[in-house]
């Protein structure tokens, strides 16, 4: 039996999960996006360096996957900010960076999480999309 595929699968699943949650939470509260971007990019490079320097194949794979996901998460901060501007993810009125976006009519930002509901099986208008999450 070759357990290296299971190791790769577990590291992929948990690092994607971690990144998915971390990017949303950090972008929500951080007044800047360049600081978290720089931190994640640095961590990603350090973890990739560890992957290159270890002789243990399982550890090299784990670091290799984790490092790349951290580097991708660094880019995701910019993508998440774009989602906030479009209203595709909830903005935080207590975050000065988001408050500016909420006040700017060029953007469609909202404090509501329009995805936080069950599918209903039919297309909805913008107003209905808001009603579906506020009336529950």
């Amino acid at each position: 039996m070759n357990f290296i595929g299971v190791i790769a699968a577990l590291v992929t699943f948990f690092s994607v999960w971690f990144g998915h949650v971390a990017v949303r939470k950090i972008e929500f509260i951080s007044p800047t996006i360049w600081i978290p971007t720089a931190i994640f990019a640095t961590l990603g490079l350090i973890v990739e360096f560890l992957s290159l320097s270890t002789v243990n194949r399982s550890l090299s794979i784990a670091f290799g996957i984790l490092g790349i996901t951290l580097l991708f998460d660094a880019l995701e901060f910019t993508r998440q900010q774009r989602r906030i501007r479009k209203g595709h993810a909830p903005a935080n009125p207590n975050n000065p960076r988001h408050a500016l976006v909420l006040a700017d009519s060029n953007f469609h930002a909202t404090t509501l999480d329009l995805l936080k509901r069950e599918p209903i099986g039919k297309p909805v208008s913008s107003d209905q999309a808001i009603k579906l999450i506020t009336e529950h």
Partner: protein
Amino acid sequence: MNYFGLLTGLATLLIIGLGFLLVIQGERILGFLWWPYMMMVGIALIIVSLFAQGDWLAVVIGVLGATFIWGSTELKEQAVRAEIGWYPFNDATRKLKPPFEKIIKNWRAPHL
């Protein structure tokens, strides 16, 4: 220098990229109620990776399995995105019904 991990990471990035397509097209053609089947495919792939000849093949199959499992937890949210109009909406009548649909409807689709 051991390049195996870095190359694995890059391969993972490509496979996760395919995962985006899997979720978007999977939801559009099949619908989010297929999530248990997508999850089962993922688990099956990870089990298959145990018997793969060679580390490269094992890693690619394992990561593909993890991507299917992650994708299964994204289908429900993707269905809501399509309803809002952020992605093309496909009516349920044009989607393939999953086996045991009535039972699956009683389960809460996962989201992480």
